[in-house]
């Protein structure tokens, strides 16, 4: 592993502005916000879901319920990775059946995590629809998946590494791009 340096590509203010915009876009596209539920992918997607829920509340009033999804059991690469991932809890305190679901994650990359998440949600019931909100899209899709709400498009090489750090999970708030990080897939 060779690391030649990193640069900050989003700071605290950038992240906050982006989440505010995504919250507005969600409200715009789902006017009444009825039957609207947010599901975050563990772990940073959950933190983002909480913040977006707060922001929608500020815009529209009313609680937007959130759930937390762990996708480990649905991954397609369990036999290929060295360290076995620890399974965290899936906590979705509502039925997804017939609901409008906004799925939320920090980085959209190959699309495999989202594929796993879609399977995970649909196993719980048949939602009316699922839309995808993402803090940043770094390209290099390996599956036909796209986001409905994109915070920022950031062109990257597969060799680079994107790290999202959020106050609640990491004690600091920034997105960094590590150049020449660990080799991509």
């Amino acid at each position, binding site marked *: 592993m060779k690391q030649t340096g990193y640069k900050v590509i989003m700071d605290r203010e950038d992240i906050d502005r982006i989440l505010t915009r995504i919250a507005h876009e969600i409200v715009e596209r789902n006017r009444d916000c009825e039957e609207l539920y947010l599901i975050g992918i563990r772990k940073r997607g959950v933190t983002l879901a909480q913040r977006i829920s707060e922001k929608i509340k500020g815009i529209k009033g009313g609680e937007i319920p959130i759930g937390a999804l*762990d996708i480990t*059991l*649905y991954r397609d690469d*369990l*036999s290929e*990775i060295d*360290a*076995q*991932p*620890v*399974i*965290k*809890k*899936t*906590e979705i305190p509502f039925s997804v059946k017939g609901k409008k679901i906004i799925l939320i994650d920090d980085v959209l990359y190959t699309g495999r995590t989202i594929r796993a998440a879609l*399977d*995970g949600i649909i*196993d*719980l*019931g048949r939602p009316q629809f699922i839309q995808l909100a993402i803090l940043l899209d770094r390209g290099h899709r390996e599956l036909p998946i796209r986001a409905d709400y994109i915070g920022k498009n950031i062109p990257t090489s597969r060799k680079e590494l994107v790290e999202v750090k959020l106050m609640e999970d990491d004690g600091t708030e920034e997105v960094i791009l590590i150049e020449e990080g660990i080799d991509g897939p």
Partner: protein
Amino acid sequence: MGLKSKDLLTIEELTVEEISLVLDTADSMKEISTRDIKKVPTLRGKTVINLFYEPSTRTRTSFEIAGKRLSADVVNISTSTSSVVKGETLKDTGKNLQAMNPDLVVIRHPAPGAPKILADNLSSSIINAGDGAHEHPTQALLDIFTIRERKGHLDRLEVAIIGDIRHSRVARSNIYALSKTGAKVRVFGPHTMIPPFIERMGVTVCATLEEAIKDVDVIMMLRIQLERQGDFLFPTLREYSRFFGLDLEKLKMARPDVMIMHPGPINRGVELSPEIADSPYTLILDQVTNGVAVRMALLYLLIGK
């Protein structure tokens, strides 16, 4: 992060970190059993064989359901209808099963150490589902999971294990599991059923029921193995029930929030009075529910990658 061994043979050889990993994973697995569609695709294409040389409802069904909820293919072999009755040795049975490429074999056997023989001879993972009077690791894990779920922690808890300690693989595995996780264990039973030098396992031997259950957080009652009645370890069942069984009257000596556990099957009116067996003090059915989650966790941890 994972388990170090390909097998789960004993609690004795597990580290505290491995025990915590199993319990935490089981905690996450529990939700799957509450869904409308109780199935996740994680172990798709994996084969689990249940090889039971002793009767069992709970443990075998629990492993089967755990495997199926993770999408593994589960095959049950009950030895009474297999080639074992023709005299095939354990090693040969194991090698023949291996030839069909299972990923994991769950074995229950009357001889202590039988799972170890399979583990040494097979490349598949082996889970010990009870070997003679030696260990029953998955039972102990589901027991401490149930306690932790209720109490929030295990360290510093006081636990009494009452009954036939000598013949009990459940007692042995639980003593290891509880001691490793920081709980304190007392044992009580007829003198003939308390093995000599049991104190070396770090437990206290009690002389009376009162001493055993006073101020404990948990009482684990063991099943009197009626099939061993030929051993004359106590005079009559009635006498056993009077001195070592639990009823509502004797329970007054314990704390009002005490939890009562039993690995099943219960002998109603022997070790537990029917009033207690059906009372809210007992967690017997929680133990069964949690058994599925704990076994799902073990299957994932052993063959999930």
